[in-house]
């Protein structure tokens, strides 16, 4: 019998035990597929980014080139294009492009079709353990929408009014991983696919998260779900907020977590107001 081996300190020793990369594989352990992602990127995102939404990006230098970072953005549109456009912006503009992991609702894992596709193009279920593994252990970029579906299902008349930022779970996740938070303000997604009303009955029948009425949906059928209007996109990355300066276990302090979450929300909201004031046209920017 060998003597009892000393158990390693949790996080650092465990990080060394992450599985090695198998170069023959085209799908990551998260179910993300290079092939599918590349295909959609070439056929759809490229065109949307450059010609349809004509994205303009500011402050890309605020996205760190190494280490984990949590990007926090406002969220809008029936089938929100903002996440994909932020990922594309990092790919196109950043000096060291890195994959971005989008946290999505658990709903997508359980709905046929979405379940296959969302993980393939970089969606990760918004579970705190998932975010922690990505940020702390794998040191990746993670994008969260703290508004969640409260942001996407809001009606056109409420555009650019940020909803509640969850319960501050994203701040806690960043604190635990000691990863900086990068707030992101996106203008344009609200007009790209505005929601005028919700059809509750059809939502219940289809089991979807919501069943919206947009300029093209449902009267143009399922294709209408991709019917984005050509609004001008502006994506502004704001200065990162470090989360390692608040002591040993700052997430225990619920008050601090809430305060930080509210501050980030206020910063994004202010930035949005600022960008909207400077915008002369919805379509031409």
């Amino acid at each position, binding site marked *: *019998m*060998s003597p009892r*081996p000393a158990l390693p300190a949790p996080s650092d020793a*465990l990080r060394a035990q992450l599985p090695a990369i198998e170069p023959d594989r085209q799908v990551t352990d998260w179910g993300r597929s290079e092939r599918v992602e590349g295909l959609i990127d070439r056929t759809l995102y490229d065109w949307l980014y450059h010609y349809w939404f004509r994205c303009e990006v500011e402050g890309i230098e605020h996205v760190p080139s190494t280490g984990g970072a949590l990007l926090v953005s406002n969220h809008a549109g029936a089938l929100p294009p903002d996440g994909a456009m932020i990922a594309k912006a990092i790919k196109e503009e950043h000096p060291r492009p890195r994959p971005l992991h989008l946290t999505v609702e*658990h709903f997508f894992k*359980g709905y*046929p079709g979405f379940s296959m596709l969302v993980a393939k193009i970089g969606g990760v*279920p918004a579970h705190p353990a998932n975010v922690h*593994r990505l940020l702390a252990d794998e040191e990746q970029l993670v994008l969260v929408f703290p508004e969640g579906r409260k942001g996407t299902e809001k009606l056109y008349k409420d555009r650019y009014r940020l909803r509640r930022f969850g319960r501050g779970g994203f701040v806690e996740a960043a604190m635990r991983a000691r990863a900086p938070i990068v707030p992101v303000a996106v203008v344009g997604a609200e007009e790209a696919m505005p929601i005028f009303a919700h059809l509750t009955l059809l939502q219940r029948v289809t089991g979807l998260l919501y069943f919206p009425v947009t300029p093209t949906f449902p009267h143009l059928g399922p294709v209408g779900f991709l019917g984005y209007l050509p609004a001008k996109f502006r994506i502004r990355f704001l200065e990162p907020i470090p989360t390692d300066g608040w002591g040993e276990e700052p997430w225990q302090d619920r008050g601090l977590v809430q305060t930080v979450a509210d501050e980030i929300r206020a910063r994004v909201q202010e930035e949005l107001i600022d960008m909207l004031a400077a915008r002369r046209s919805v379509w031409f920017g």
Partner: protein
Amino acid sequence: MTRILVTGVSSHWGGRLAQALEQDPAVETIIGVSPRDPTLELERTEFVRVGTQHALLRRIVQAAEIDTVVDSRLVVDSLSSSPREAHETNVIGTMNILAACGGPDSPVRKVVFKSSAHYYGCERDDPAFFTETMRRPHPPRTRLESDIVEAEDAVRGFAERNPQVTVTVLRFANGLGADLDTSHGRLLRLPAVPCILGFDPRYQFVHSDDIVGALEHAVTHELPGTYNVAGDGVLVLSEIASLLARPLAPVLPPWGTGLAAAGLRVAGVRITGEMARQLRYGRGLDNRRLKAAGCRLRYTTREAVQRYTEDLRVHRLRQGAGAPYRYEREVEEFLRYSPNVRRRAEREPDPSAR
């Protein structure tokens, strides 16, 4: 000197574990118990047939002064036995085995419990990688799952009541190997891999060699607590199908999957309750705690599937090559106890063995 008792020695990994321990000179005695005959040839392991409930185990443990109990008998696949039998084995059996190991006068110092990742279940709101401290987000969905949860709760209670005993719980991902008969092994043997339309679940396997290796590691090292055992890497089902060079067949509809599974059963394809959930939501385990404890797994999930593919190609040839082992009590007793048999220890005296 260790004196080991292996339950479920008639299972493939139980037999393989006993074979591996036989090679270890530090192991003095190995006793294998099971309700069924051993399926692998054992040299110095003594086999005792017991009932499914393992009721009389305490007497064996006391009489043989067993210090290490490896409990590898848990039913983790609804394929291998009926729900009632599985319940007897998993809940009542575990209770009796733990009762045999506990108590102030018990010689047992270590219990290794082979459990399953079915403990975590498969749900929509699962984390992508389960760590050992996580509990399942919802109550068990199938009888087998609730039996496994109940068995593990009993083991946890035992560990709390008996701090002098090192209790290791190993939660295994789905096993894969040409010599293992599991429901997923059968599924991947089909000419096309059935799946649920619109789902591409994440899967993790552990090769049968690594199952044995992890159990052996837990016997020879001190690993208190719970450990996930799964190959590195999580594959999606479509990736597995392409490694197997088989097409995916989305024969199960996303709604009414249970009904379609019942139809498939008539056609000879058995989709168990646990499997239906895995085919929908998939499951990933975080195996880093085990790796940090020094256990090296030989196969990643991808390599396990590749190995399985290769083994399947030559499976028929291998099957015909050697006569399968059959346990016969008289022959075994002759080989072990007859003064006319020359045993290995006598043939080549090994000083380290004494």
